[in-house]
């Protein structure tokens, strides 16, 4: 055979921590708080928790059961369930490959910011001075220093996806480091991964706790927390709220990539994964809620700081225009003075009008951001205003790194495990094979470090995994419930756990989850068709802001290719297996006839 016995986790705790480390990722920090804000604050928890029990936990349980029963990666496991549906596993591997390619870029950014935190003045706190030394650089002045640092110094972003420059050297180095560390974590398979997850799963919670304490004690933080938690029940009537809750649960748990199947395949046959599935799902959702409290206190602080600087600028403007003594106007009575001056000096005041800013705390608070923009722009803006910003910056980016690297462990394992099940690959030593996979992804990932790389990153982020995952998990749950048969599945689980799953699980697998997934699938298709040409946010240097731009033709073709390449694995594999079986069948028939003739 040439292959040793399948390695196992050292203890069930390692498996649980690995799942937690994989599921709790950047999305918990930068997508859930945004959704909460967009859909009525505290009220969003209701659809979120309902969806957790309708689709989240059952689907998570399903994947763990398959992995543990088959003790194979996704390709092998699905081929064992139904030979025609091995394509589901292949689609998972392709999707995981796309994810691996672009996900480590985020870790590279985290490293970049982390390394730049070791300076006396954080580089995103102030604009760099232009060559004449008369003021800040023009681009930085139109935008904010944090935006300038992200778009110009970190990404060196091109004005559109069509223009390309060279590779950003610093980014490439950070990406190399990210892949080297990923290799270090997975070099021995579960033996090394199992030890690493003790740290990557627990460290983010320590940082979140520290940040919670720091965040709540910040000036103005309470505004943000109040804003978030005031439930706005009318959003519950909006179907978008429920759709977003369903998709968030779905993607947050990392279903469909094959990582859970891969992790579970290293379990002992009788491991009690039922309890573990519930625990991990609850921990994942709990972390989202916990992280959003932290995020909202940071939001509140940032909004209050911006509001107060707006008031200060207005105060100085009034003082300078009307030559009033300095301590007559202070922050509290700015608005009264505006009224007074408007009535006493109307013509002079009218001249001011275009310079006078509208200072409103509510507007500041409701400017919600998600994704990389939140993590790297909004958060760093808040950090630069804290006392001792270097410490907070280091802690924060270390936390982002742990969250990202933890998820990378699952992503890379999802590729390596099914491929190693093939006899061809198992002759190679695991260290060499893992190294090859890492080098391959590194080389392709270098494309994301070019000047237009961030736009390609957005394509992968928005289209690489979303639609295909829905399709994959839908096929998974229908296969298990109807093709493999719920009765057979129940028996397998009884074999492993000692008891059958109760009615809740059976109803969810056979009726609720498939219906929900079909519904979401249709909504996505409708949105794609109705959405018109897909667009992206291009950074405009002259305006110092992002501009909505349409993708060029090659961009749209690439999006189509991404979607088709992973989904088509399923029908193509089924066709291939069908053809092979028919050829085999014909061959046997011919042999049979030959033997009867000779007999």
């Amino acid at each position, binding site marked *: 055979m040439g292959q040793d016995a399948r390695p196992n986790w050292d203890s069930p705790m390692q498996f649980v921590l690995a799942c937690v480390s994989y599921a709790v990722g950047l999305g918990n920090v930068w997508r859930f708080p945004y959704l909460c804000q967009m859909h009525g604050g505290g009220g969003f928890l209701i659809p979120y928790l309902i969806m957790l029990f309708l689709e989240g936990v059952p689907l998570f349980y399903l994947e763990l059961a398959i992995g543990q029963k088959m003790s194979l990666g996704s390709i092998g496991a699905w081929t064992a369930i139904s030979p025609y549906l091995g394509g589901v596993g292949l689609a998972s591997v392709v999707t995981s490959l796309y994810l691996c390619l672009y996900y480590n870029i985020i870790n590279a950014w985290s490293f*970049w910011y982390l390394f730049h935190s*070791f300076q006396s003045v954080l580089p995103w706190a102030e604009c760099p001075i232009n060559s004449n030394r008369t003021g800040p650089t023009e681009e930085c002045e139109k935008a904010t220093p944090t935006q300038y640092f992200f778009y110009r110094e970190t990404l060196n972003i091109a004005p559109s996806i069509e223009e390309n420059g060279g590779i950003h050297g610093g980014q490439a180095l950070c990406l190399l480091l990210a892949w080297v560390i990923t290799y270090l974590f997975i070099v021995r398979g579960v033996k090394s991964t199992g030890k690493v997850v003790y740290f990557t799963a627990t460290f983010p919670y320590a940082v979140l706790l520290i940040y919670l304490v720091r965040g709540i004690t910040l000036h103005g933080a309470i505004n943000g927390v109040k804003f978030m938690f005031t439930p706005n029940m009318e959003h519950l009537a909006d179907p978008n709220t429920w759709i977003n809750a369903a998709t968030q649960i779905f993607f947050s748990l990392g279903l469909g990539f094959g990582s859970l199947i891969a992790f579970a395949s290293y379990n002992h046959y009788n491991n009690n994964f039922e309890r573990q599935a519930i625990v991990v799902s609850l921990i994942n959702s709990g972390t989202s809620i916990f992280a959003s409290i932290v995020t909202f206190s940071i939001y509140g602080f940032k909004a209050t700081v911006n509001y107060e600087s707006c008031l200060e600028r207005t105060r100085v403007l009034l003082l300078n225009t009307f030559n009033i003594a300095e301590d007559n106007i202070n922050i509290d009575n700015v608005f009264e003075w505006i009224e007074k001056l408007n009535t006493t000096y109307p013509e002079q005041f009218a001249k001011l009008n275009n310079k006078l800013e509208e200072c409103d705390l509510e507007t500041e608070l409701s400017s919600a951001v998600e994704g990389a923009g939140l993590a790297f722009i909004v958060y760093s803006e808040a950090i630069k205003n804290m006392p001792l910003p270097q410490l907070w910056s280091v802690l924060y980016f270390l936390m982002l790194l742990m969250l990202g690297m933890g998820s990378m462990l699952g992503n890379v394992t999802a590729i390596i495990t099914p491929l190693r099940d093939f006899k061809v690959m198992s002759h190679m030593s695991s260290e060499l094979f893992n190294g090859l996979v890492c080098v391959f992804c590194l080389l392709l990932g270098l494309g994301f470090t070019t000047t237009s790389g961030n736009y390609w990153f957005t394509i992968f982020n928005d289209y690489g995994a979303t639609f295909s995952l829905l399709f994959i998990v839908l096929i998974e749950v229908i296969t298990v419930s109807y093709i493999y048969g719920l009765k057979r599945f129940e028996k397998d689980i009884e074999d492993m756990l000692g008891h059958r799953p109760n009615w809740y699980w059976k109803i969810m697998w056979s009726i609720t989850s498939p219906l929900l997934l079909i519904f979401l699938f249709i909504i996505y298709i409708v949105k794609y068709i109705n959405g018109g040409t897909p667009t992206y946010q291009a950074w405009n240097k002259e305006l110092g802001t992002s501009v909505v731009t349409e993708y060029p033709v090659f961009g749209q073709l690439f999006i189509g290719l991404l979607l088709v390449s992973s989904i088509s694995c399923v029908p193509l594999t089924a066709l291939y297996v069908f053809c092979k079986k028919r050829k085999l069948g014909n061959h046997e028939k011919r042999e049979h006839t030959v033997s009867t003739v000779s007999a």
Partner: protein
Amino acid sequence: MLYSQGEMLEKILLLFCLSSALAENLCRPDASNGYKVRLSIKRALGDEAYVWNQDEMFLFRATLAFAMRNHLSGQDFQVSNILVCDETPRVSFWFIVTSPLDATRPVGKEDVEEAIRKSRSRINSAFLLTDQTLEFIGIIPTLAAPVSPDTPPWLIVFGVVMGSVGAGIIVLLVYPVVHKRLKKDEEEEELEEEEGEEETRRVKTMENGAAGDGAHNLSFTDDERFTQM
């Protein structure tokens, strides 16, 4: 003597009044050769702010005269050459600089600007203020040049992290190979030792048999050896 003393005195007085009137006309808001100054003392110093009064104004005029002297060396600017007007409670005012040689002629804007630029830090420190809190409207302060170290600090941290991770990987990869080789060597040694012991034992039994006891029958001991298997 064409004029009497009284007439002389009158003429001198007239000239004096005229010149001072002219001087006052020179300094006015939006004067072509003047600059507006704005001080934000409370913003800069908070509780330690001093009150702006005529003594502080005198210091300002003296500092400015110093700046002019510094720039146009040779010309003896006096405090009276710095004319100030339009003071407001904001603490802002206009000033204009007249030439020491002719009190009616103002010094050009460019010269004044150059003089202030040169001695900006001295003027600031005389009032414990900064470029942002002591503003000369129209004269943009030259910002300090950015400090750029030879190796950017981030590269140093990167190097440290990359180095330690690389060392970690090498250790992880090399350790089991070394471990296996050591184990193999150990096993080989043990195997050799065991074989060696058996041989000495066999030799001993033979010797015992040969030396022996008279009671022992030599041929039997030989047989024993064979049947030991």
